[in-house]
Every structure is written in C-alpha cells, then in structure tokens.
C-alpha cells in the first residue's frame, strides 16, 4: 500500500519535471539535430530514459535541480544520433536549413540574415563549445548547471563558454566579411 503511494508520488514528481523542462529538452534537441522531426524523437527518448532512472536521480540529486541531468541524457542520446547518422547517407542541406525557419516574427525577420549567419557559425563550432552555447543562450542555464550537464568543473566551463563566444564572434566576422566582398 505504501509502495503504491510512493510510486504515485514519484509519477507526480516526474510529471512536474517534464512539464517544467519539456521546452528546454526540446530546444536543446532541436539545436543539436537541426530538425523538428528528430528533435521530437530525441525529446521523447530523453524523457523515457529519464523516467526509467528518475527514482535514483531524485535520490542522488539531494534536492539540486534535475535539469542538468535531463540535458545530459539528451546530450548522450544526441551523440548516439550523430554516430548512427554517420553510417547513413549524409544529412541533406534542407535539414541544416531548417533552423532559421523558426524565427518568423517581424522583428526577427529584419535581422534574419544576421541571425542565420550566427546560427550557421554555431554549427561550425566544436561539439563541446556548441553545446555550451546552446545551454547558456537557448536554455538560460548558468555555469554550474552547464558544468553538471557536461560533467566538467565550474572553472573549465567558464573558460569553455568564453572561448566559444570568442571563436563564434570571429567566425561570424569572417563570414560577414566574405559575404560583403
């Protein structure tokens, strides 16, 4: 009887978790894989896997937020996704071009070229730098959360973010320069 109520409590806590972080996991997945279809799959897989290990994660988190743990699951699944994809035919340009389609409000359309360029350059960054930027800017995670999600120290994460921004800025400048020539 007590076990049943524990299970119900756990399920309710999990429901709260995925309601609170569905958008985070989806955003992360989307910016990692570059299309809605795979992002949905990845999000679903992430939550299914999270559900299987939720009890232990909750016990071991000692009250800390579970978002980094969720994003870490998505991160590992996305790595598998890329590994599997490398065995199949290469991704078409349509998949990569799907990213800018999101920003459809008028204010964004004005900056569309600029934003497209930034997004294209984000895709050129090394994996760890790109992921750190997605976590910081798309999900609004702080250094500590990103460190936990990537399994790094706070200091190393701070350096990683700093270098990622610097490299991206350089890439965008170079891209803008070549486009105006």
């Amino acid at each position: 009887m007590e076990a049943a109520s524990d299970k119900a409590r756990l399920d309710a806590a999990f429901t709260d978790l995925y309601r609170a972080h569905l958008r985070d996991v989806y955003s992360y997945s989307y910016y990692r894989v570059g299309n809605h279809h795979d992002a949905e799959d990845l999000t679903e897989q992430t939550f299914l896997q999270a559900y299987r290990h939720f009890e232990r994660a909750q016990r071991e988190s000692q009250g800390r937020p579970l978002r980094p743990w969720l994003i870490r699951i998505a991160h590992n699944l996305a790595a598998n996704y890329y590994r599997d994809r490398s065995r199949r035919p290469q991704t078409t340009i349509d998949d990569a071009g799907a990213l800018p389609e999101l920003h459809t409000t008028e204010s964004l359309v004005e900056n569309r070229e600029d934003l497209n360029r930034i997004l294209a350059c984000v895709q050129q960054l090394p994996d760890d730098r790109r992921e750190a930027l997605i976590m910081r800017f798309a999900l609004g995670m702080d250094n500590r959360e990103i460190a936990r999600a990537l399994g790094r120290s706070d200091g190393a994460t701070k350096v990683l973010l700093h270098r990622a921004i610097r490299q991206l800025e350089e890439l965008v400048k170079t891209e803008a320069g070549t486009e105006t020539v």
Partner: protein
Amino acid sequence: MSDTWDFEARLRQALAPVEPPADLELRLQTTLGSLVELAADELEGWELRAIKDPRNWPRTVLGPAAAVVVGTGAAVGLVVLRTRGGRRGRRAQSRNALELAQKTVRDAGREALRVFQDIAR
C-alpha cells in the same frame, strides 16, 4: 565590452528557445502512462503464468527437493566409499564373519558422522 554585449544579445536572439509542438506533451504523457500500465500488467501476467506453468514448478518447488535427494545420495555414496576403503584392515583384524560385520557397521557409522560434519561445516 559593448560589442561583446551586443554579440551576446544577438546570440541569445539567434538561439531563441523553441516551443515544442502542442501535441508532444500529450503524446509523452500517453506514452509514459501506457508504459506504466504495460509494466504492471506484464508483471502481474508473468507472475500468474509462472505459477500456472508446470515448467516453472521444478525451479520453485521441485528444485530444492531434488537438491536434497541428490545431496543425500552423494553423501551416502561417500560413506560407502570411505567404509570400503578400510575393508582389508578390518578383514585382517577380524577372527570371523560376525566380527567383520560388526566392525564394518561401526566404521560406516563413524564415516557417516564425519561426512555429515563436513557437510554441516
């Protein structure tokens, strides 16, 4: 500093959070609900099947009984072997068949006691 700030602002704009499709939450909820029900049904069904299926009986009931039979048989075999080992000595020390039989029974009892003490250890 301001350039960096501007760049970070643009980056934030470029990497705007993406709203998941409206039906994704519902779909996830349904999938998780089905999984929980499926797991409960499967467990219940498996337990019932396991009890009803005679193929599972040896593991649960006949298994320990068979182990006792096999174990006892092995122990008795060991007692017989060890008792037979001292046969020549007993024959040499015995004056007649009755005395030989008495010594054999006594040795068998002693060996049985040793074997069961070994098992208990």
